[in-house]
């Protein structure tokens, strides 16, 4: 067995996009192979949990962990990998802030199941409803138990670094891999624990090339209602709620550059406690009205504020879940 440092990657509650993003670094992946001994990576290779159990604690140098904590299996593996890894990276939006799966925190678990298995649009002739344990002649089959709410990796285990993005930009991944390799070769220093890697400290506007003026907005519109979108002018100034001002930089303002509003997948900027709150004040600040009625009328242009402001960050926000979700789940 080689003495190359060991590398692991795991997906908890996630879509697999992060893995694709990693593969998107093209030939750089070879450097990974050259410098690391990939010991565990369910998507890419076959490995069993007990193999990992068997490893010596802290024997894995680098683990990129993507996906949020949706069920007890996710948590178990998170704890396991935490034990086995020296450097545990919350990789991608799901692991850092809950991401889209986190939006489930607005509804109780039962409701989620009902939507998934028992809505008119669901084809479920035998009316199957998943059970956590199920008796068959061969014995008992078990399924992981859903957590009442989705948690971020850091809410369950101690995390060394965070790498935001849904998914993280491939050039950023490549850069991080380079960095780690350089550290291995003693050419570079690791950033302080807990810092965000593969991203900037400012916000998307910092990288956005669009022209900006003093902002006063009289109506919020959906992007499709603005036609044509001015290719030069700040998207928010065109009335489209663009999350760029509050979203961490690092993506080279991908969406705004191609004329779509930023939806905030890189999460809050450095030091921000609640991402949504930043957007609330930001958008409210540019509303150009004084009379409550007028203001309300303008705000009607944002039909789903909670979704707009917490699309990616809900699980990591101060409130984390709706009363509906946690009251039902006996908190």
């Amino acid at each position, binding site marked *: 067995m080689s003495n190359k440092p060991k590398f692991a990657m795991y997906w908890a509650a996630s879509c697999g996009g992060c893995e694709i993003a990693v593969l998107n670094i093209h030939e750089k992946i070879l450097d990974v192979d050259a410098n690391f001994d990939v010991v565990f990576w369910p998507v890419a290779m076959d490995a069993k949990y007990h193999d990992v159990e068997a490893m010596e*604690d*802290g024997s894995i140098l680098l683990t990129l962990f993507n996906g949020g904590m949706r069920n007890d299996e996710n948590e*178990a593996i*998170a*704890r*396991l990998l*935490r*034990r086995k*890894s020296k450097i*545990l990276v919350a990789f991608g939006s799901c692991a850092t802030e809950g991401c889209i799966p986190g939006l489930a925190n*607005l509804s109780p678990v039962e409701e989620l199941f009902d939507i998934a298995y028992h809505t008119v649009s669901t084809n479920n002739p035998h009316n199957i409803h998943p059970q956590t344990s199920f008796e068959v002649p061969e014995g008992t089959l078990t399924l992981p138990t859903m957590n009442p709410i989705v*948690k971020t990796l850091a*809410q*369950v*285990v*101690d995390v060394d670094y965070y790498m935001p993005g849904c998914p993280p930009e491939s050039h950023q991944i490549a850069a991080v891999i380079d960095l780690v390799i350089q550290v291995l070769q003693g050419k570079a220093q690791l950033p302080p624990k807990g810092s965000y890697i593969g991203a900037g400290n400012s916000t998307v506007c910092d990288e956005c090339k669009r022209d900006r003026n003093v902002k006063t907005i009289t109506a919020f519109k959906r992007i499709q209602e603005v036609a044509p979108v001015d290719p030069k002018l700040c998207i928010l100034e065109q009335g489209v709620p663009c999350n760029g001002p509050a979203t961490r930089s690092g993506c080279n303002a991908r969406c705004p550059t191609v004329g779509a509003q930023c939806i905030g997948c890189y999460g809050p900027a450095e030091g921000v*406690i*609640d991402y*949504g*709150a*930043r957007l*609330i*004040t930001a*958008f*409210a*600040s540019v*509303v150009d*009205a*004084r009379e*409550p009625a007028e*203001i*309300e009328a303008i*705000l009607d242009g*944002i039909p*789903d*504020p*909670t*979704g707009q*402001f*917490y699309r990616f960050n809900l699980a990591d*926000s*101060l*409130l*984390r*879940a*709706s*009363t*509906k979700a*946690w*009251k039902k789940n006996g*908190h």
Partner: protein
Amino acid sequence: MSEQFEPVIVGFTCNWCSYRAADAAGTARVKYAPNVRLIRLMCSGRLDPTFVMKALAGGADGVMISGCHPGDCHYIEQNYKALRRFLLLRRTLKGFGVEPERIKLIWASAAEGMRLAHEIDSFVEEVRKLGPLNWPTWKDDQHKAEPVMEVTA
């Protein structure tokens, strides 16, 4: 303490009107419900929605925000900005299932100690009606798995 539910309310006041209104209420010995604990800001415009969320997440049953009357702001017009934020914040919190009645914006001038006291009383009653919010403190965060420790079941 009485049997009935005593809501805990965090209040944010501006330094110039509403905090002085509280002073005025005190000087005039106006009695009002003790459920509100005030935090002084320079202006209601300083109110960051994060404060409100932190208060609610931290166990407050309601949040009161108060500033100078529109048009009387010591900083000329900043209370209008507070108003806008307040309205958008309330909409957002609705999505979290927080009843809009739990957050209240009150205008009170430095002279309106009586009014402030009265508003506080009525707000306390409103929140009392709604019952406790006691947002969970997510105990599960507390026992985080430290690296190289703790066995998983």
